């Protein structure tokens, strides 16, 4: 039995005309691994994690966490998981310590054991010295750390982190990534959602790539990169938007995909970059455009996404 099993999840908001947020999504997460859901905004990552947190009920499909059904045994599931929501979900007029004590009580903890565990978590997130300050006075990074700490109090078997590094400084981001690695090393199974390819690459044992509610690929980083073969990505910047060039380049021999032009930027996947580059310059000159920047990149998750969707991850 897998630690987390997801089969054919479907969720539509405001049916029948509302958007299908999650469409027939299936995947498994192994015990003790870090599994990332990678995809742009609106891909369905947060809806998936909300279903696995028992916040939303799926229209169809089933998910089991630690062997318990999220629809039929939600209280059992909730006892196993710690959820770090995408937005800061703390009480700003309470201190960091008061927040942790409160959230600990919501997991059924109390007394001396709760006090001790709060001390441990404060030390883990590096806020022992600021524990009595109101959360409203914390920096964004500090709030993020308390946001994570609140999900760790009951030593959860599964930790869900929904885009925990959005909008914070590089130092805090680094600190959070290191904490996730430490927790995973301590045996916690992690479900991590992000639209940052670098984070998914650094943290994950396996990755699920989502787009427009669909799970378009699941595997280890190596397995996913092999989907694009030995191709190279060429990132081009033009001095103007040139939609006509995107059409021309898609028809070129050796080009497997071209992203939609975005403010003069396009990405191409090709088997032979060296042969292709002179043609790109020639086409641009003919179209009256000028290439202002060009770079080559080795295969990575960004290229996988481009290869599978025809769009860059940042789109």
């Amino acid at each position, binding site marked *: 039995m897998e630690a987390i099993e997801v089969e054919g999840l479907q969720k539509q908001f405001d049916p029948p005309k509302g958007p299908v947020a999650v469409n027939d999504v299936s995947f498994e997460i192994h015990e003790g691994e870090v599994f990332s859901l990678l995809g742009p905004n609106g891909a369905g990552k947060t809806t998936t994690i909300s279903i696995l*947190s*028992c*916040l939303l009920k799926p229209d169809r499909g089933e998910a089991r966490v630690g062997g318990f059904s999220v629809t039929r045994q939600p*209280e059992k599931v*909730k*006892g196993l*998981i710690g*959820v770090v*929501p995408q*937005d*800061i*979900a*703390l*009480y700003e*007029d*309470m201190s960091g310590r008061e927040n942790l004590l*409160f*959230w600990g*009580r*919501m*997991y*059924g903890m*109390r007394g001396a054991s709760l006090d001790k565990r709060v001390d441990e978590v404060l030390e883990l997130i590096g806020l022992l010295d600021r524990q009595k300050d109101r959360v409203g006075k914390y920096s964004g990074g500090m709030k993020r750390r308390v946001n994570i700490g*609140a999900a760790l109090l009951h030593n959860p078997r599964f930790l869900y982190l929904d885009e925990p590094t959005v909008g914070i400084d590089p130092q805090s981001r680094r600190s959070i990534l290191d904490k996730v690695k430490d927790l995973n090393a301590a045996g916690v199974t992690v479900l991590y959602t992000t639209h940052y390819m670098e984070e998914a690459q650094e943290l994950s044992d396996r990755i699920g790539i989502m787009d427009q509610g669909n799970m378009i690929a699941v595997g280890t980083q190596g397995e996913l990169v092999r989907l694009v073969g030995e191709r190279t990505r060429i990132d081009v910047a033009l001095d103007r938007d040139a939609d006509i060039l995107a059409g021309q380049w898609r028809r070129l021999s050796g080009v497997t995909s071209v992203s939609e032009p975005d403010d003069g930027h396009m990405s191409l996947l090709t088997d032979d970059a060296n042969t292709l580059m002179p043609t790109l310059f020639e086409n641009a000159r003919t179209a009256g455009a000028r290439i202002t920047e060009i770079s080559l990149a080795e295969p990575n998750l960004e290229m996988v996404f481009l290869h599978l969707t025809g769009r860059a991850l940042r789109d």
Partner: protein
Amino acid sequence: MMKALSIAWKDTVHVYRDIAGLAMMFIAPLVLATVLGAAFGSGDNFSIAAVRTVIVDQDKGAGAGTPAAGAMLSAALESPDLGDLLAITRLDSPEKARTAVDDGDAAAAVIIPAGLSSALASSVAQEANVEIYKDPALVVGPSIVAAVTESVVQTLNGSRAAAAAAARLAVSRGVTDTARLAGIASKAGTAFALQAQTDAQVTVEARNPVVEGSIEKRPNVASQVLIGMMLFFMLFGAATPAHSVLEEHRNGTLSRLFTTPTPRSIILSGKFLAVFVVVLVQAAILLLAGLLLFKADWGEPGPVVVLTVCSAIVAASLGLVTVSFAKTVGQAGAVSSAIFVFLGLLSGNFTGTIVTSGPFATIRRISPVGWLLEGWSKLLYGGSWGSIALPVLVALAFAVVFFGISVFFFRRRYA
């Protein structure tokens, strides 16, 4: 249960850390009660400032050994018993007295004619008019002066009648000596006046309605107003923690609570409990403040406690039901305020328990707050368990319905 208490404690602390909210809950009702109490008077009953009155006594008496009627009238108006009502100044001419009234320096002038005693002592009809010259723009003050003056003049006329009757009786019994007859008449007149003042057999007494099975009390105005203000601001006190459901929804903490192994019924129970505790504490503090600041006598402790708890339950239910219809905090604030002000006007919160009769007393029974005010009114006037039973039961019935509606909407929204 521990989780519900933790949620209630957290919400209660949140309320008490909001300075503006606290001012609304505690300072505003006390300030308004103080201001309105001062406007209506804070003594045992309504009071007004002493009426500035000038007296001109031109009466020289009817002769040696006979008391001057003008002096009696002046003394009556200057009596210490009327010191709170009338501020008397003596002047020496009618012109000066009228000028004082014309200039607004006095509300009324009492001008006693020179022949008052003579007219009273005369055996033949002789007119003497005591003139009351009053400011036409004023009503209450001059009316008081006129009432006191008329009362004394009636006593004097009574004395005259008693004197005349005694003299006629003496004549019928054969007394013919003029000096003796004058002495008999004088004694009869004086005796009448004294008896009228000290041993009145027929009196008029104004009384308030008496609640059945109770002793009559006369609550002071400030305490009556404070009850209305307390109930009104308890609604706002209840709305503050009730809004926390929507605030938590907006801030994401409600969703986070739902990811913990805490049943939604416990979460809502904790929130409801917080609303109740906050308004109960608010009521207790305001009642205590009324006791200390306004020397309010709320009534028997048992019924007061029951009515206070009942008031808190009703306020909590109203706070929750108004929030349950709203989708955002801003919407809830606007809806709650509008409903509470309407209820305040309908129930008579702004006059407290002062209005207890007439059509308004019936109309306000549409509102649970109106029933609560009725209960408090009965307690303030000396009522006990029997007199508050119906208001408490009806108000609680309203509260049960409101709680039911709130639970229905909250559960449906957060199911």
